[in-house]
């Protein structure tokens, strides 16, 4: 192999070499324009934003953290602009029922995974495109319970949240009805609710029936789960009718009929309807400040053109890796020393088994059945707890996991996969404690844009290991009781949490309980990075609840200023 082909050290995707000389860069850009006039801004169909216009708010990211507050701020009459790194899709036309073809939904800019339990990103975590990772979330929407917010109070580990369940309850209620959550009339766990879920639960698929059977024999209570996918046609204010779920089982690779409450079919059309300007393919590179340290605007790249948008307030909603990455790259809000620290991933061990029954794990909502009986297990030797979920699975995802965990190949690998239609899984979603050895930092290695890649260190600590062992034991017993053979476990950590946590003081937290940065008066963060602890439930609903709350607190403050 010729030496020239060997990569420059530390560079993965040298799509284009970085040109350091500004004059040369300008000349090359002009040449590019002559060669390809469609790249000329003047040839673009959409008018360029006025570089001098100052909008009230810029929101970076259109996922569960950015979209709800974007709608709230637009509805309050503010001039708001959302910048989304990925494109605006037309799911009906563009989304294939094919995992590989759908990989454009994932945040595929490479992240470096370090530590004893390296976290997998890509399909396992962040998303790209208008709607962010809600385009590929499983749509599991349990509420956190009150004690989830007080691990330190109850167990003397981790930290407590500066807010509790009562602060979020009105938002949980609002969201469940706005999004059209399907769930049981009487949810068996957690505080009493003011209203039932607006829609009946989605039907149980094979994996859910098997988990129900196994749990029944062990005396573990189960319930149809709460899912942000419609069990019936639903009319949503400001958006219109959304169609019911067709049991396609493809939530994690994109819903193609709008049944799943991703942000692109819920809060974002509502926001646009109230004047929000949502700009796709807009990748933010710089956050600008004045002499006092207040943010004045952002610089972003859209379709190869560098643009600036001035703003009075900035809402950073890019998720628990890109949010701290932008803060670190811009040396912003760093005085607490907590940016990038306290990285957490939910314990998410899966247990798989083979059954005599025909299951067809590609059908039905993946997470149809839940149990929160393990929220605070009596025999626990760890802090916090977890919930149990049945899981459906798409073939490529399953095969890939089986290859990694079971290490099967050759004829043995093909033989095992032939059982796909008879395989069902259960997994947990459990708490994770912040730890000093788990953090995100900027690596020396650069991405295709010449920006430092994020490196994420994660090593499961004693609490996570004990919880995982406890859960694996229970799930193996459930599967044995349900009649499974060839049972195996896939250790796994899902979701990305922490890295810019909220707290009472700027000495040990990045933002306050309202999401406002202690260091920068007009900077807010709204996404999973502000979580002080992981919570023992899937994060999406809580991210959205915090997003609405941050918008309301911001609007209250603005109104006080007006008086």
């Amino acid at each position, binding site marked *: 192999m010729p030496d020239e082909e060997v990569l420059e050290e530390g560079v993965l995707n040298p799509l284009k070499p970085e040109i350091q000389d500004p004059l040369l860069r300008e000349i090359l850009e002009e040449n590019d324009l002559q060669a390809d006039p469609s790249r000329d801004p003047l040839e673009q169909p959409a008018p360029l934003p006025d570089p001098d216009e100052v909008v009230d708010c810029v929101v970076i990211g259109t996922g569960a953290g950015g979209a709800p507050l974007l709608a709230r701020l637009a509805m309050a009459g503010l001039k708001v602009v959302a910048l989304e790194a990925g494109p605006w899709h037309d799911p009906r036309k563009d989304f294939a*029922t094919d995992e590989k073809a759908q990989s454009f939904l994932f945040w595929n800019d490479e992240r470096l995974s370090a530590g004893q339990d390296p976290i997998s990103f890509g399909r396992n975590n962040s998303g790209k495109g208008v709607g962010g990772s809600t385009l590929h979330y499983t749509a599991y929407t349990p509420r956190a319970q009150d004690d989830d917010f007080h691990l330190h109070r109850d167990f003397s580990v981790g930290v407590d949240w500066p807010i509790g369940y009562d602060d979020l309850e009105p938002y949980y209620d609002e969201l469940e009805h706005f999004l059209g959550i399907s769930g049981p009339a009487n949810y068996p766990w957690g505080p009493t609710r003011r209203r039932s879920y607006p829609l009946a639960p989605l039907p149980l698929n094979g994996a859910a029936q098997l988990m129900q059977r196994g749990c029944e024999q062990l005396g573990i209570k189960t319930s149809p789960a709460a899912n942000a996918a419609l069990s019936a046609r639903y009319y949503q204010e400001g958006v219109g009718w959304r169609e019911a779920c067709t049991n396609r*089982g493809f939530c994690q690779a994109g819903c193609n009929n709008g049944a799943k409450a991703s942000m692109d079919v819920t809060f974002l059309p509502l926001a646009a309807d109230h004047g929000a300007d949502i700009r796709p393919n807009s990748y933010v590179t710089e956050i600008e400040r004045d002499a006092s340290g207040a943010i004045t605007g952002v610089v972003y790249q859209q379709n190869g053109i560098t643009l600036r948008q001035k703003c009075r307030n900035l809402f950073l909603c890019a998720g628990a890796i890109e949010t701290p990455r932008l803060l670190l790259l811009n040396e912003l809000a760093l005085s607490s020393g907590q940016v990038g620290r306290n990285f957490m991933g939910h314990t998410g061990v899966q247990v798989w088994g083979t059954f005599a029954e025909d299951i*067809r794990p590609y*059908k039905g909502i993946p997470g149809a059945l839940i149990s929160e009986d393990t929220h605070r297990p009596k025999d626990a030797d760890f802090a916090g707890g977890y919930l149990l979920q049945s899981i459906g699975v798409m073939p*490529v995802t399953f095969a890939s996991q089986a290859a990694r965990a079971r290490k099967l190949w050759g004829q043995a*690998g093909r033989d095992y996969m032939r059982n796909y239609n008879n395989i069902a899984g259960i997994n947990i979603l459990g708490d994770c404690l912040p730890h000093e050895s788990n953090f995100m930092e900027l690596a020396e290695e650069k991405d295709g844009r010449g920006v430092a890649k994020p490196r994420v260190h994660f090593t499961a600590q004693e609490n996570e290991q004990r919880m995982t062992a406890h859960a694996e034991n229970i799930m193996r017993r459930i599967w044995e009781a349900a009649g499974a053979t060839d049972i195996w476990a896939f250790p796994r950590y899902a979701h990305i949490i922490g890295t810019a946590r909220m707290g009472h003081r700027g000495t040990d937290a990045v933002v306050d309980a309202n999401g406002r940065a202690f260091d920068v008066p007009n900077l807010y963060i709204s996404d999973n990075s502000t979580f002080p602890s992981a919570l023992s439930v899937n994060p999406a609903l809580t991210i959205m609840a915090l997003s609405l709350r941050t918008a309301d607190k911001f609007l209250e403050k603005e109104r006080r200023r007006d008086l």
Partner: protein
Amino acid sequence: MASPHYPEGTVRALLATDLVTDATRAALQARLDAPLYEPQYLDGATYEMLRAVAARLFPQPDRPDNPIELAAAIDERLLNGESDGWRYDILPPDREAYKLGLGGIRESAQAMFGNNFLVLTDEQKDEVLTAVQHAKAPGETWKTLSAVRFFEELLAELTENYYAHPLGQEEIGYVGMADVPGWHHIQLNELEPREPEAEVK
């Protein structure tokens, strides 16, 4: 449990119907109809190594004339500098990891059997690959490249390519792509007419 076998031709037949959306058909048909591939990123010898390794990790004695091509998508991905969003920090960038790792397998084959990997018997090849998978393979390469993680990444990528192919999906009885009417029979042992039943051979 004996491995179920599903009838051949199921997926190919479904792709021709309106049970499949245009976007889905486009993705799957392109893989079925993929033309003969010439490597564009890896040099000829390294690409042949990749194909030889793939042929052991996914032996296809049932398709002697036209096995599912698993190496092409890897070469194309490396050429385009595409990533799946992450990599083990202990591995070098993917392009480098593939070149180093395939070179390492060649080196281990020499050390274990005094011969080129390509000319070893299937049993010998499997012995080399097993040694690499369990970090027991000899060779300078593995002193700086994690054999376990390289093998895991290689196997995962080949596996994803195999089961993304319509024939790989057909083999496991997967017809989730035929979802235009939605699924109504989703409980245990409930099948739609378009879902094939397994025969145990």
